[in-house]
Structures are given as structure tokens and as C-alpha cells.
């Protein structure tokens, strides 16, 4: 029997569960230097906002054991530039495109959602709530479940029907309540999760290794943490469509996330280490499925025992 790798999100079939993670494949089709992007289940762009952002001062990255901390600062050319220059590069007929977006106030989020919501070539939006609200003293939207729910409801209204996946922050112990609020607000599903707040210090210069003093940790180091939280969300909200993000580097990692309840799996840091990693992992996923006697990958969703 032919191996079925396809999955579905917001009513659309994806040919396989692999997608890029926002911020690790740019705003454009640079990655197509390394493989045909249509091989992916979906492509998630780096975050965009209404106004361009130049990003943080260097140094913006540092390496930790099996991890990468970044404080890129959401550098992006602004939504208008993105729509005019980068969006047309994508083969949107054959590759579902998910555009990640953010703001620094409720109004800028809504403005971004409204501009992107009109674009037919975009399959879905991914709303990054791990951002500070400048109108509320810099408190992170993702830290307050009620504020997050309210924000998501307003953005969804502005998109006029485009599916919105909400990308949760793993940094807050109330993430289950946030998941609940944003799903009630009408989100199509959840991306679990963004990076973990982290830092590193250079003992010679006695200074932080990153210009901001801290950043977000990604890579293999975070996989066990995000795997646990994703499973907790799946246990509480078994009907909710989940996109896993955090530390995936092997076909085994993909299967773990699906067993824990994911419908799809993003590759982030692994693409930075090897830009061909999506097709390498797709091949090894096929081989692993054959070896494990799996005919339909999505039959494993949420099937972890005990």
C-alpha cells in the first residue's frame, strides 16, 4: 500500500506535514536555491509587520550546547514591500503559503491582519503573540490570556475569513489558558511553540553575548520541553489542530510530535544548519515509516500511550 504522508490544516490537505518555521527561511524564496519549495507541505514566512523594522544591533546570535539563542529583532521590510516584492515569487498554486505577522499594539496587529487577509495567494496567517504591547508598558501579549484572546478575535475579524493560527509562547505557565482563549476567539489552530527566553555570558569580557542581553532559545535543546507542552495542549483540547515547532532535526523527532498530537511540524534551526534539511528529513521520514510499518502517518496523531 502506498505510504500516505498527507495531513490537513484548516480544511486544506497538505502533501506532507513539514513546513518551514518562521524566521529561519527568510521572507522570500531564497531557500529554493537548495530544493524545490513545492516539496514542503507548506511554507511559513519570516514575520512581517505593517511598518518595516530594522532589527536589533549585533551580536544577534550565539550558540549554546545543542541550541541557538537569537535576538534578531523581527527585522522585516514591512507588509507592503513584502506583498509587492516577495509574495509573487512563491508558487502559491502548489505550495500553501502561511504568512507570519506581528505588531506592537492591538491596532498595528489589526492593520497587519487586514492587509494580509485580502491576499488570495496566502493560505493562512500565523499570528506571533510573543511580542511586547508598547501601549501597555511593554507587557507581552502572550503573557495575558484575556488580552491574547481579545487580540486574536480582532485580528480574525480583520482578515475576513482567512485561517489564523496563533503561535504561542512557551514562556508562561498559563499557556493552557491562553490556548483556550485564542481558540474561543476563533483561531484555526495553534503553533506550539516559539523560542524560550534565554541568555549567555562571555566570562572574558564579563558581558552578555547578545546585544539585547537576552534572546530566544531554539534547536535540539528545546525539543523535550516543547514536546511536553504540546502534548499537554493536545490532552486538554484534543480537537484543536496543532503545528509543532521546536527542535526538530530528525524523522524520529517528527514522529514524536505527531504521536504527541501534532498535525504538522515546522523546521527552524535545522534549516539554518543545513538548508536542504526539509528534503533530507522527508526522505528519512519515508524510510522510517516503511521500517515501522506505518502506511498513514496521520494515524499516529496523538497516539502516544500512557
Amino acid at each position, binding site marked *: 500500500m502506498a505510504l500516505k504522508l498527507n495531513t490537513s490544516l484548516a480544511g486544506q490537505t497538505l502533501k506532507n506535514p513539514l513546513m518551514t518555521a518562521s524566521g529561519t527561511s527568510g521572507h522570500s524564496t*531564497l531557500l529554493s536555491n537548495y530544493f524545490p519549495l513545492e516539496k514542503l507541505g507548506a511554507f511559513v514566512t*519570516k514575520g512581517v509587520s505593517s511598518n518595516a523594522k530594522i*532589527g536589533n544591533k549585533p551580536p*544577534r*546570535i550565539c550558540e549554546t550546547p545543542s541550541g*541557538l539563542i537569537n535576538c534578531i529583532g523581527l527585522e522585516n521590510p514591512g507588509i507592503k514591500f513584502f506583498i509587492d516584492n516577495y509574495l509573487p515569487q512563491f508558487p502559491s498554486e502548489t505550495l500553501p503559503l502561511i504568512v507570519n505577522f506581528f505588531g506592537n499594539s492591538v491596532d498595528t496587529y489589526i492593520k497587519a491582519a487586514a492587509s494580509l487577509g485580502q491576499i488570495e495567494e496566502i493560505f493562512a496567517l500565523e499570528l506571533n503573540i510573543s511580542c511586547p504591547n508598547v501601549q501597555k508598558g511593554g507587557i507581552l501579549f502572550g503573557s495575558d490570556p484575556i488580552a491574547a484572546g481579545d487580540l486574536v478575535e480582532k485580528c480574525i475579524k480583520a482578515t475576513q475569513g482567512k485561517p489564523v493560527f496563533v503561535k504561542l509562547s512557551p514562556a508562561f505557565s498559563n499557556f493552557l489558558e491562553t490556548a483556550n482563549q485564542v481558540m474561543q476567539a476563533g483561531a484555526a489552530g495553534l503553533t506550539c511553540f516559539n523560542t524560550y527566553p534565554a541568555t549567555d555570558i562571555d566570562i572574558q569580557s564579563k558581558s552578555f553575548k547578545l546585544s539585547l542581553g537576552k534572546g530566544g532559545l531554539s*534547536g*535540539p535543546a528545546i525539543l523535550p520541553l516543547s514536546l511536553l507542552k504540546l502534548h499537554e495542549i493536545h490532552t486538554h483540547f484534543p480537537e484543536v489542530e496543532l503545528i509543532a515547532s521546536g527542535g526538530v532535526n530528525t524523522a524520529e523527532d517528527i514522529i514524536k510530535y505527531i504521536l504527541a498530537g501534532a498535525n504538522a511540524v515546522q523546521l527552524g534551526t535545522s534549516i539554518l*544548519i543545513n538548508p536542504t534539511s526539509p528534503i533530507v528529513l522527508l526522505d528519512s521520514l519515508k524510510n522510517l515509516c516503511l521500517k515501522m510499518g506505518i502506511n498513514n502517518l496521520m494515524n499516529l496523531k496523538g497516539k502516544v500511550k500512557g
Partner: protein
Amino acid sequence: MNKLKPNFFSAPILSNQKIGKNYFCLKVKTPQNIDQVEPGQFAMLRGKWNYDPLLPRPLSIARAEKFQLDFIYEVRGRGTHLLSLMQPPREIEILAPLGNSFPPPENSLPLLLAGGIGFPPLYFYQQKYGGKLLAGFQTNPELDLFSDKIIATDDGSLGFKGNVLQLLESCTEINNYSTIMACGPRIMLKQLKNRCSPLQCNLFLSLEEKMACGTGLCHGCAVKSRQNDYFKICTDGPIFKSSDVNLEE
């Protein structure tokens, strides 16, 4: 020029030998002919170890001929240490060629100024096109690549005692050069930029920053532009006209 597209490949190690105090030369076999690689371009390299170190390391290409790439590197931390232990017949993952390159000479040959482990791309340039190379080190690098006359050491253990800019002032007339190319620590590049700003010369700098991907995906390798936004060193550079970048940030 017909620029080669970057390619990710597993490269068999031909040799990886100590060539100086803390310096190694790694030679690898490539799956495609890389004659078109230009001095200044670089590669991301990673041994096939598990997750630590996680990221590939950027190294300049020190020579490219037919199906062979050479790198010269200094052991600085864990990544370059592990790299120095790898011997044939092991293979190494390489993403190359990356970035832009120093411009080929037009009317006259350039002055090439290297600080520390900044010399490999300039050495490549000199071998390919010529030019006057001066190289500064903290201490005698024990390399067999250069004549003592073009070396400066901070401690005076070899060649001129002082830094490479002081050597330059002592042995040649900077005004004789319409083009200067340099690679080295940021502090040296800043001093050189200041020194050259009243002059008429074209100054090209090879910049370094921590890199995760080397290929424009992560936006990790930022340097401030004259317009006050950021360039990505890996794809907009690593070679910049000095007037295009703001090194003061």
C-alpha cells in the same frame, strides 16, 4: 562573471594538517568544478558530529581549483578544535561558495592588509591576481607561507615589531595604491578606514560576524549600513566598500 550557486555537499577530506603555531590547512574534494570561486568567498563547514557544536562555522576559501577547496584556519574554540581532529577518509558537510568577493584588479594591483586569521582570502587573492600583501599577527605564527619582510608581530617575535598598519607606514607609501583590501579584527578595520578616509583610494573590507546559516536565511550576521539599516554580511558581503558600512555601532 558567472557566479557559482551555493551548494550543500558532503566533502571527503583530502588532508588536514597543522601548518603553523595554531593554524591548520584543510583540503577537501568537491563534487563540482569550483574554478569560478573568487577570493573573498567563504563556506560554512560542519563535521558530522551530533548536536554540539550545533552550527556550521564560516571559513574563507583559501584556494579553489578544479575539484578541490582549501581552507586555512586557526583553532579558536570547540568548533575549530573538533575540525582540526578530522582526518581522511572522513567527510565534512560544506555549504559553498557563499558571499561576494574582492573585485579583480583593474589598472593596478591592490595593497592587501591582513590582521591575524584574516589572511586566507587575501592570500588567495595574491596567489590568483597578485598584489602587495602585508600581514600582522600577535606573535610569530610559524607559518611557511610568507617572507618575514611582509610580517608584523605585536611582540616582535617575527618581522616588524608593531601592527600591520604601522608596518605599512614604515615600508610603503599608502598613497601609491588606488585600491586597498583588508581582512582582520574589527578594530584594525576601523583604524584603516579612518586612515584612508582623507585619501582617494577604494577600500574594500571583509567583515566577520557570528553566523548561523551563511546564506541569508536567519538575519543573524548584521552590520550597520551607511543608510542606518542593516546589511547581512553573509549575502550582502562579506566584502563591503568601506564607505557603505558603519563600523562604529
